[in-house]
C-alpha cells in the first residue's frame, strides 16, 4: 500500500480504512499482533487483515462485519485525525484542477495543517513531481512528516517547519503551483512568486473571510498576477429514499363519473422517489477562491496564471 499506488493485499505497516457503514469509517495502522476495536467488535490484524485482499469483508469478534478499504486521499480526508480545520474533497478537487496539477508538477503548500490537501496533491503529482510543504507549528510539521512516511509518499515531499510569511517556502524558481491556506495569505504572496518558475505558474489561496480575499487579491495584483478570480464550490448530497403521500378523499360523486374514476382508480398511497439534500453543504469549509494570474516578468507575456481560493 501507498497513497500513490494501489496494492491488492493488506500488509503489515499499511494504513487501511475500515468501512463501518454509511459515512462511518476509521483508519487503522496494520500491525502484526495488534487489535482494533470497532462497534462490531475487535479486528485482529494478524488473522483478519494481513494477507487479505483490500475490499474484503471482515467479521469482527462480536459477529458484525466491516469492509477493509485501500486508502485513498479522499478516504483519508474523511478519516484523518484533525490537528487543524481541514480542506475537504470538494474543495480539494477544485484546487487540483485550478492549479492544473498533474504528474510531475512541483508544488508549494502552506500550511500543511492536518495534511488533508497534501495527500491529494501527492497523489496527483506522483511519481515525478514534488511537494514542498511549509508548516509553522512544529508539532504539526513533525506529525505530517511521520504520516507521509507511513503512507509511503515521503520521497515526494519535503516538510519545512518555518513561517512562510517570513521565511517563504525554502525553494526559489521551481514551483508550477503554490497553494496558501494561512491567516494572512497576502503576506506570503511575494514568497509564492519567488517560489514559482520564472516562466509562470498558478497560485491558489483559501480563506474564510471576504476581507482576507480582498487583501490577497490586492497583493496578487501588486505582484502582477493576472486573471485573478474568486470562487466558491459547494457540495450538495442527495439522499435517495421513498416517500408515501396520502391521497385526499373528495367524497363520492355520482354525476361526474370520469372524475370519480380518476380519483378511485388511484392508489391510496403514492410512492415517490425523492431526494433531500443536506440543508447545508457537507464540507464544513465551503470554498471561495480568487484565481489570479501570474507575474509578468517580461513585457511579452511570460505570465503565470493563478488561482486563489478561500475557505469559509
Amino acid at each position, binding site marked *: 500500500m501507498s497513497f500513490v499506488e494501489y496494492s491488492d493485499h493488506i500488509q503489515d505497516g499499511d494504513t487501511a480504512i475500515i468501512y463501518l457503514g454509511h459515512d462511518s469509517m476509521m483508519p487503522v495502522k496494520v500491525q502484526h499482533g495488534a487489535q482494533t476495536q470497532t462497534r462490531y467488535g475487535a479486528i485482529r490484524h494478524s488473522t483478519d487483515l494481513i494477507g487479505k485482499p483490500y475490499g474484503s469483508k471482515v467479521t469482527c469478534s462480536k459477529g458484525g462485519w466491516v469492509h477493509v478499504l485501500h486508502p485513498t486521499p479522499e478516504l483519508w480526508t474523511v478519516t484523518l485525525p484533525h490537528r487543524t480545520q481541514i480542506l475537504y474533497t470538494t474543495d480539494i478537487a477544485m484546487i487540483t484542477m485550478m492549479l492544473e496539477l498533474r504528474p510531475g508538477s512541483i508544488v508549494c503548500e502552506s500550511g500543511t495543517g492536518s495534511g488533508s490537501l497534501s495527500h491529494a496533491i501527492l497523489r496527483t503529482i506522483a511519481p515525478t513531481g514534488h511537494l514542498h510543504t511549509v508548516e509553522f507549528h512544529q*508539532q504539526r510539521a513533525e506529525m505530517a512528516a511521520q504520516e507521509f512516511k507511513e503512507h509511503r509518499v515521503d520521497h515526494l515531499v519535503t516538510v519545512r517547519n518555518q513561517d512562510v510569511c517570513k521565511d517563504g517556502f525554502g525553494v526559489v524558481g521551481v514551483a508550477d503551483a503554490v497553494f496558501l491556506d494561512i491567516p494572512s495569505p497576502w503576506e506570503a504572496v511575494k514568497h509564492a512568486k519567488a517560489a514559482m518558475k520564472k516562466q509562470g505558474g498558478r497560485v491558489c489561496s483559501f480563506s474564510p*473571510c471576504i476581507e482576507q480575499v480582498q487583501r490577497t487579491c490586492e497583493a496578487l495584483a501588486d505582484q502582477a498576477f493576472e486573471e485573478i478570480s474568486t470562487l466558491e464550490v459547494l457540495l450538495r448530497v442527495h439522499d435517495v429514499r421513498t416517500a408515501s403521500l396520502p*391521497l*385526499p378523499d373528495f367524497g363520492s360523486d355520482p354525476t361526474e363519473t370520469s372524475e370519480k374514476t380518476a380519483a378511485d382508480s388511484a392508489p391510496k398511497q403514492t410512492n415517490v422517489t*425523492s431526494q*433531500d439534500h443536506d440543508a447545508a453543504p457537507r464540507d464544513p469549509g465551503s470554498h471561495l477562491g480568487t484565481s489570479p494570474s501570474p507575474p509578468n516578468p517580461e513585457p511579452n507575456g511570460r505570465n503565470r496564471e493563478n488561482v486563489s481560493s478561500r475557505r469559509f
Partner: protein
Amino acid sequence: MADNGDDDSHCRIKEGDYVVLKRGDIFKAAQIQLKKKVIFEKQWIYLDNAVGHFYRTTFEIGSGGTLLLKTPKEMESSTAAKEAGADNRNIVDDGKSQKLTRDDIEMLKEQGLKGQEIIQQLIDNSSTFKDKTEYAQDKYIKKKKKKYENTVMILKPSCRILAMMYHGREPGKICHLRHDTLAQMLTLANIHAGSKVLVFETCSGLVLGAVMERMGGFGSVIQMYPGGEPLRPGVDSFGFPSHFRDMLHEFPICHVNALLTGTLNTKTKDPSIDSEKSVLTAKDVQQNKADVEQQGSPEEQSREASSVANTSDDQEKEDREKRKEAKAQERKAKQEEKRKKMAAAAALLDGRNADGLVIAGRFHPCPVLLGLLKFLAPSRPFVVYSQHKEPLIECYTKLKEVGGTVSLRLTDTWLRHYQVMPNRTHPLLLMSGGGGYLLSGTTVAVDHSKPAGSLRAEEPAPKRLKLTNTEG
C-alpha cells in the same frame, strides 16, 4: 398599526398574550398565564414578571424560574481580545487547557453565578485563551455564552418568527417548509386584505395563520381540511385579535364532490332524517375520532375499552346507557355546529370565484390541486408547496395536459446568511433543497377548442365562467 404613536399599550406584554420566547436562535411559542410553568430549553420559567414590560425585553432567568429584568449591555465584548495571540502556532492541543472541571462548573452554577460570570471564570482558568487569536477568542466566548447564559427575550408573534420557530424546532410538523419558502407562497398567491382564499394545509396551521396575518381581518379564508376536525394548532400562536376569527371558514374536502355536483345538503336541521347527510356526518365523526386518536388521546380509547370489559351488573349498564345518550347529544350538537359552519363555507365556495389557493402539506398535491382549482375565478393565482419535487412535476404535467392555467412555474429558493463583521465577513451555510418546492400559476378561462381527451377538465369551465359573470 395605524394607531397613534403615543399609545404603546399594544407594545406591552399582557396577561393572556400569545408570545414567543427567544434565546439565540431558539424560539418557543407560549402564552402569558400567571403562575403557570413554561418549559424552555430544559428550564422551568414563570412568565408572570414579564407582564407590563415592552415586547423585545430580555430577562435573566432567576432561581425558581422567575424572570428578572436584565441590566442593559452587561458584558457584550468586555472579555474579548484584551490579549490575543497573532496566530495559533503556540497552541498545543493536549485537551488539558481548561483547569475547571465539569463539577467545578456545576458548583459555580449552584452558587448562583450568572452565565457571564461563569464564562469569565472559564476564561480565567483557560491556559490557552490568551494565546488564541482574536477570532478564536471570540468563537470561544460565543460558544460558552450559548451554553451558560440564561436569558430569554419575549417577542410578539409574527408569521416570520413562527415560521423560523417551527422550522428550527419541529420541521416535521410543517413538512419542512422554510420561512423563505413561506414568504414566496404568500407573495406568489397575492394574499391580501379583502380577498377570498382557499387554504389546504397540513402544516400545523402555520400556513393558514400566515395567510390570515396577511389578510388582516379583511376578507375570507376557507380552510379546506381532509376530514375530522380542521387542525390548526399553530394559528393560536399568532395571537390574532378575536375578530380575525370571523374571516375563517372551514370545509371538509370529503364533501367537495357533493358540493360540485350540487348534491350537498346543508339545509337540514336534523341529520337523522336525511339519510345521505347522515351517512356523511357519521363518516365525519368516524374520521374525526380517527384523527383524535392519531393526535394521541389514548385515554379515551382505553376508557371505552375497559367499560366494555367490565360490564357485570345492571347499574353499570344503565350508567353506560346514560353516558351513551349524553355522548350522542353532544355529538349531535357538534354535528349541528359543523353543519352550520359547512353551510357558510359552502356558500362562499359555491360561486367558484375564490381569489387564491394555497396548498401545502403531506397529501399528494396533484389530486388536491386539480380538485380545488375548480373553486377559483379565472385570472387568479395559486401556489402549491411540497417537500419533494416529484409530486409537483406530476402536477405540472397534469395541468399542462388539462389546461385552464398559465404561467406555471416549478421553483425553489435558496437562503444564504452572511456574517458581516469587521475583517470577518463571510457567507454562512447555504440552505437549499430542504426548504421545499413550489408550483405556482394563474387560472384562466378554459379553452373550448381542446381535443376530446381533456374534456373532463374542460367541463366545469363554462359553469365557472358563468358564475363569475353573475356573481362577480
